[in-house]
């Protein structure tokens, strides 16, 4: 994994956010959310930076990062595929969707694909139970009543989008 240098311009963006927070106490989680938005993940360098800026021990930052499943210390795919594992989705075959996705992509757990395009994540109930089973790609693309045979089609639509972006 490449090390993020202290001169990286993204740190400036993060610092601007930290400075904008008036009430520093209790804001660690909020700062981590923002940092993950900016960097995509929370490697050690970013955690140390935050610890220093908020004046808390690095161990505290690490403790919080590892406690919450939303935070990740490893990069994720460009398109994060979230498979809902809520009760309704589970009852309606969410695990079959998950298996098929990992098989199609040749990945285990939530590691990104070799091309860095996708990573697959089991997530807690997305609250769209009436459409179960559901898959969310990125933050906005919802797929409801998904069946395993629809998976290749869904994946291809993103591959095509990428190919098109690369052409432009």
């Amino acid at each position, binding site marked *: 994994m490449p090390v993020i240098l202290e001169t990286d311009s993204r740190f400036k963006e993060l610092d601007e956010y930290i400075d904008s927070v008036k009430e520093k*106490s*209790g*804001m*660690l*989680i*909020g700062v*981590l*959310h923002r940092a993950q938005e900016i960097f995509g993940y929370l490697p050690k360098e970013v955690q140390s930076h935050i610890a220093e800026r908020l004046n808390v021990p690095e161990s*505290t930052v690490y*403790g*919080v990062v590892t*406690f*919450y*499943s*939303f*935070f990740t210390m490893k990069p994720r795919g460009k398109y994060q595929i979230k498979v809902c*594992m*809520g*009760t*309704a989705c*589970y*009852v*309606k*075959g969410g695990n*079959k969707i998950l*298996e*098929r996705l990992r*098989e*199609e992509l040749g990945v285990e757990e939530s590691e990104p694909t070799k091309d860095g395009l996708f990573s697959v994540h089991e*997530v*807690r*109930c*997305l*609250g*769209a*139970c*009436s*459409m*179960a089973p*559901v898959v969310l790609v990125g*933050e906005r693309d*919802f797929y*409801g009543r998904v*069946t*395993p*045979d629809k998976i290749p089609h869904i994946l291809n639509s993103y591959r095509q989008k990428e190919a098109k972006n690369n052409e432009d």
Partner: protein
Amino acid sequence: MAVENTILICAGGACISAGEESVKSVLEEELKKYALDSVVRVVETGCMGACNLGPIMVIYPEGVFYQKLKPQDAKEIVQEHLLKGRTVQRLLYKGPTGEIKPKAKEELPFFKRQVKVATRNLGVIDPVNIEEYIANDGYFALDKVLHKTPEEVIEEVKKSGLRGRGGAGFPTGLKWEFTRKSKSDEKYVICNADEGDPGAFMDRSVLEGDPHSVLEGMEIAGYAIGAHHGYIYVRAEYPLAIERLGIAISQAHEYGFLGDRIFGTDFSFDVELRIGAGAFVCGEETALIQSVEGKRGQPVQKPPFPAQKGVWSKPTVINNVETLANIPVIINKGAEWFASMGTEKSKGTKVFALAGKINNAGLVEVPMGTTLRELIFDIGGGIPNGKNFKAVQTGGPSGGCIPAKYLDTPVDYDSLMELGTIMGSGGMVVMDEDTCMVDVARFFLQFTADESCGKCTPCREGTRKMLEILDRIVEGNGEMEDIDRLETLAKTIKDTALCGLGQTAPNPVLSTLRYFRDEYEAHIKDKRCPAKSCKSLIAYTIDPNKCVGCTACARACPVNAINGEVKKVHEIDQDTCIKCGSCYEVCRFDAVEKVDAIDLVTN
């Protein structure tokens, strides 16, 4: 020009997922094209509840209800309905027997049998427009309480009989009174919007569809206990709720309903958002307080209760979203009115999220004491595909399953407790004959084992041990003693875990053992899964008499385990088959069958 038509488009979570945004943008383009945009008002509302019919649109003054819309349908609606005055028959709701219901919102039992209190504004107002909230009595209750003493407000809430909707059902008025009586220079109100139970989306719908009702409820709580500051703790999985709350807070500030000296009185109140980060245990109040303070969300021993020592060690009231959304109505319509609904010990109404194997999956609000049968069959439309009802799961990972023989139970806190489950936050997941109850118990145990924060041993180790046993059973490697082991472990964890997560984690196992013990025994003794759902115990085969050789299954199979030529009977190679069920899903001739694997071996 005066507005001639109002179009309400449901922008609840399910409708958005089903493509509401594109429907709306085509609609708006089309209205512009025909210069109708000044006489037709388009309002995006919160969840209307009929989530399986989305995207939904209701056109007034007639009240015509259009459903399952595609973007292109919006064109037809403008050209036919609005320009020519002709209802688009094709897009109307059709009942199970084909009868057409043009005004479904007034005609369908799904809508007619509901009584909306906490969800009063959902599907009615535009959640990002504070004026619509005000026009529906919004912030009227706040004004009213500021003319009363805090003690009078608490008395009113106590008289209403309102109990917390977040799970435990603690009387809200009493909780406020305790916090009021705690001496401190500062106090806090926290709205618990963590809604972690899988299968529940009530709070999400209220936050997205009527955020001001939650803010108003918090302010009333603040006035009652003597707090000036509130936090809303929302889970990160709900970005739209976060966005709408942000808008609501800034609008309320603009209109002087939040901030300093509200309505010119001495009362000041401010609300801040805190975003969760994916930890179920943070819904538990003491863990939530830790998380609001930016720490690891680990529960702490009670007492002291938050009413004495909460966030920043100050007295704190924590209430659930739905609890708070009820408050303004109780103040406006009075405690007697609220208490006239419901059962002896559970007053008012309750919002339920119906999901799973049910026709009308969606959001409903009914008086406490409504029976499960009414909820699932009359309102929920029963079980799809002619299957049989097996059980309904309430209370999420802390709850249990209720079998068919108790369908006539009136739902309230106490009746559900007697059946070995809990009301929880109101998620109801319906299961049919294809659902394996041992697997369901395993699912919940997996959930709690994953979400256990690790602080106390009974929960951390105990849930993991129970999970190992359940894994064994669903894989066909269980022994009869395992059932006793599960029961002993369950009892120990219940008695000794630190917080509610651990104390209730064994409930799904205990309740399925109570009602579906035969399923456990079938897995263990006969190596059969009665629901034909547990992978290790089943196999897929093709009935040669039904197979027409269409090749659909062979094409769907991800591992090429199906052999056969076109128009000839196909066969599944059991050694290659991964039992993904794709062939079963795609076969249109019912030729693919699920059988007990043990029968294949002995044949």
